């Protein structure tokens, strides 16, 4: 099946929360695409605590907080595909649909279609090189 009402790009906190809200609002044919091999996104590297005080009324680390959301996604039977990267998103001229081209070992390169797409990919840090700091480039830094 390559047609969905909603495709959510990114399985981090925003993507998972969006999926849960959409499901609650009655959207059943939705799909989360995540390029990492686990759900959680940036939270997986936020190993300090302090997450979840508002939502779960307890103090959690980033990965623990992400796991709560991942559990809810699974409880709600929301489909998600890991190790799947989006190569392009395009609005089709002839309809309201959006074409989302993905790659994964399972699907190969395939185009999926959705009525709506949520972009929840987070952001990208600029690398050290972009700052143009002169000097040597130390190994492994």
């Amino acid at each position, binding site marked *: 099946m390559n047609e969905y009402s909603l495709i959510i790009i990114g399985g981090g906190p925003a993507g998972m929360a969006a999926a849960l809200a959409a499901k609650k609002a009655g959207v059943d044919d939705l799909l989360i695409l995540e*390029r990492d091999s686990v759900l959680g996104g940036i939270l997986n590297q936020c190993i300090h605590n302090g997450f979840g005080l508002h939502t779960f009324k307890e103090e959690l680390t980033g990965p623990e907080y992400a796991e709560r959301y991942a559990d809810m996604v699974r409880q709600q039977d929301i489909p998600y595909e890991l*190790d799947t*990267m989006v*190569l392009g998103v395009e609005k089709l001229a002839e309809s309201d649909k959006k074409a989302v*081209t993905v*790659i*994964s*070992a*399972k*699907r*190969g*390169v395939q185009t999926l279609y959705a009525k709506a797409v949520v972009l929840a990919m987070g952001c*990208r*840090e600029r*690398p*050290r*090189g*972009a700052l*143009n700091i*002169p*000097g*040597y*480039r130390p*190994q*492994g830094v």
Partner: protein
Amino acid sequence: MYDVLIIGAGAVGCAAAMELAKFRLSVCVVDKESDVCEGTTKANSAIAHAGFDAEPGTLKAKLNVRGSKMMPELAEKLDFAYKQNGAMVLCFDEADKPKLDILKDRAVKNGVDKVSIISGDEARKIEPSLSDDVCAALLAETSAIICPFEMTLAFAENAYSNGTEFKLSTEVTGIDKQGDIFIVSTSGGNIEAKVVINAAGVYADKIHAMVCSSPLGITARRGEYLLMDKAAGNIVSHTVFQLPTKMGKGILVTPTVHGNLLAGPTAEDINDKENLATTKGGLDQIKAKGALSVKNIPFGKVITSFTGLRAVGDTGDFIIGHSDVKGFIDAAGIESPGLTSAPAIGEYLRDLTGELIALEKKENLIETRKGIAHFAQLSAQQQNELIKQNASYGKIVCRCETITEGEILDAINRPLGATTLDGVKRRTRAGMGRCQAGFCSPTTMALIADKLGIKIEDVRKNGIADRRQDDE
């Protein structure tokens, strides 16, 4: 005992190896680094120069033009990136226009085709981003951009598949001639050879002095560069040079063969041949001088800066020929246009070797070399075929450049395969994109560790563990 030992696995050493591999000779290439293409070859402007710059009659002129003409067919046969994008030399001052005529005259004398002088307006019509101050330009249509890593790897892999041995991580420490035989002592034991070719880049003087008494001087000339994101790669389509001005030597602005934008190099003679640091002054100079040629270069889109060292000889020309010790051949002082000249230098070194030992053609020569699949450049159908054959092509490791696990595994597993992060990077471009290896490093390291059977903490960015320990 080898017939020929080549010291240095850069563009020149590997080109010589490829040429000599066509004959029934035993040939070995040694290099102190853990991979081919680790010296001057890896950090330069990546241009296949047309050949209008060198003084007529010099080796630089002859070999540049020959190399430039060999390049398209080599790129086809050996599967490396090459694009004839043309070059312009910009003139900013009416008074300097005769200097363009001198270059055009040289082009004619050197046998370079398709060179013309155009007006500033004509130049801006071809390249709308050029500065309003450009009053005339030399247009050289046969100038091209190439991938220096892929070219050198292609030479090396072809030589290897035709029987050439490579001893990497092997530093030459002394050369002794006993009778007609050279005993070359290295960090990996002695190597004996009838002919030795010195293609040691910035260290060619040191290698030369190990056995020769004639003087040979090499100065390292530092050149700094700024590399910009692919989003800036379309600002110019030609390689844009400047006439030397009162402000000094020019800075070029060029698209790279992979679609980035490159600006540089500076030129500064230094004593330390390991000094690959960039400097604030150098980077500022690139910005200031680059802006003279091209309007609104988006220096905010820089993704990395780097420094390369050119091996500048003390004669003004390439120093290629028999030395004062019979059997010891120098290929020294290979500064610009060395990359372009490399395949022609390979032929020249073959001929010089032929003056010392008999060259008999090898049968069943492998003339082609297949590179690593460039997944991102394939059609969706080709991509799916590849994934069907091997699921690892369905897994993107380097997100910026869309490099798959399959390509990285090929880079590690193929002959003369990568053993370091930089080795994978030069073979596949994994880590060369916007994030500069921020995301793909851990995955690539795990793949290297797994395939080489080493611990992940022993995977290096470059070099070998022992030699680099004192750096830390």
